[in-house]
């Protein structure tokens, strides 16, 4: 009897609420750990995705990690080595835990295998979820797939390590580009350092470049001086309020711009600011 008296009495109601708190607590704990890991796993901003991939955030939501794109890539008929009869390594890899990419999602590394921009783009139509969206590479005029509409990233030239900018004649990237003289152009310039030579500088056209990475693969320097980055990383953004002068199209843009600037009106706005000096107004 005395033993029982010492025990606190646990009512049904207390038991119910404690159980509820117990389950909710464990659930929140699990969700926080799991969501924390998911947030970390999502963050791979330097990843190059297959052509026609949705914008990264949407791509990560929809990709079911089935690998059909990678299989279509490696087994495409053009990829069969004629000597061995075996396919060469495919461009698209499925991310493993040690890759700095969300596990199970397709990506490619240009220095290993770049994208060869097949005319039939075999990796895109096989996607069952639409995270590789065939519309993104379909030319609206012809209704057919168009490799020029691919967008995997943008090639960027490091002018410090590109030997063409030293005055050495190298056009490896220019010749490797599947869109030769469109995506990479050679800019002729006078070498004022020597005073008697020419520069043949590779310049990337950001509108034509698809980010296939053939230039990066072809680059002769120890670590490539031209490399592909996702457009989001490679490009800056000037903001809507800068205008390119003597450019009809850009001036047009400004005249069409809807003004969204915020103007603050308060008690002080009633007075003319000039009167601060002229009439000695106190604000």
């Amino acid at each position: 009897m005395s033993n029982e008296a010492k025990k606190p009495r646990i009512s049904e109601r207390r038991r119910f609420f404690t159980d509820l708190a117990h389950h909710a607590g464990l659930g929140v704990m699990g969700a926080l750990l799991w969501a924390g890991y998911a947030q970390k796993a999502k963050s791979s901003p330097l990843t190059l995705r297959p052509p026609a991939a949705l914008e990264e955030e949407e791509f990560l939501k929809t990709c079911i990690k089935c690998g059909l794109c990678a299989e279509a890539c490696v087994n495409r008929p053009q990829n069969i080595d004629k000597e061995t009869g075996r396919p060469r390594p495919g461009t698209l890899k499925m991310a493993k835990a040690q890759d700095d990419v969300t596990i199970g999602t397709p990506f490619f590394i240009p220095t290993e295998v770049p994208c060869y921009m097949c005319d039939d783009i075999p990796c895109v139509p096989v996607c069952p979820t639409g995270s590789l969206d065939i519309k993104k590479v379909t030319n609206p005029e012809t209704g057919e797939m168009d490799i020029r509409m691919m967008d995997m990233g943008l090639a960027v030239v490091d002018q410090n390590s590109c030997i063409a900018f030293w005055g050495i004649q190298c056009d490896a990237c220019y010749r490797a580009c599947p869109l030769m003289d469109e995506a990479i152009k050679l800019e002729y310039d006078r070498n004022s350092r020597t005073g008697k030579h020419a520069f043949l500088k590779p310049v990337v056209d950001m509108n034509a470049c698809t980010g296939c990475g053939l230039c990066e693969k072809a680059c002769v320097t120890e670590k490539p001086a031209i490399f592909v980055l996702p457009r989001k990383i490679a490009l800056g953004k000037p903001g809507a309020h800068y205008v390119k002068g003597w450019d009809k199209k850009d001036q047009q843009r400004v005249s069409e711009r809807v003004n969204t600037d915020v103007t603050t009106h308060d008690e002080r706005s009633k007075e003319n600011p000039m009167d601060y000096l002229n009439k000695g107004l106190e604000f």
Partner: protein
Amino acid sequence: MMKWSNLKYLILRRFVQLSLLFLYFAGNYWGWTVLQGDLSSSVLFGSVPLSDPFAVLQILATGAMLGTNVLIGAVIIVLFYGIIGGRAFCSWVCPVNMVTDLAAWLRRKLYIDKIERKIWVTRNLRYYMVVLALIVSAISGLAAFEIVSPITILNRGVIFGFGAGSGLLVAIFLFDLFVLKNGWCGHICPLGGVHSIIGKRSLIRVKHNSDNCTLCMKCKEVCPEVQVLGMIGKRSEFVSRQECTNCGRCVDVCDDDALDFHIRNLIASKESK
């Protein structure tokens, strides 16, 4: 000592599991069009889509729109297991089943079952995991189970090459061996939970005949979901609980012809209740 008839369904299951893995592997390595993709989403004979309904559910939970192919694939899978197979995915298809079965077999052989300190974990944990996975998918915008699933890690490992994720498989093996009996497949795995729910009303089921039963309890020793065998030696009836994976191990080990696969007549069983 061991009779071949005592391994019938085990061998059949390993054959199915390994054949599927081989076909997936061949789909990538030789470009065979029998079965391409992986267990998350595949294409059968180059035309029929098949998709993991749980993966699809998680993607929908992120708020994303999905292509029709993957939705049709999920419907086909749900119909197949829902009408015919029950929770057969777990024991006949899933490659992790081979890992956890190995752990369970070793537990029996090494008498770990008899020695270890028992930890009790509710077998309903998997259903909480399903809900949690959907919530985390919605919060993080990433199909939450698909980034930690040992099933897809093992499956993709076979098809595209193994990576550091293999460590997770070793961890699950050790967990099942030393921490909790049937820990992963029988308690935690949310995909097993989803397949339990899908297969609840399936036609193919194990049926117990208690007249033949000698109460040797061999079936309960090997069953990975032992709570479904509550009727052994008591009532002649179908194993009707949804967690039964239709693995047929109980049928295999029964020497008294007291357990076998039958087609359940749902209408009749309702009348008898």
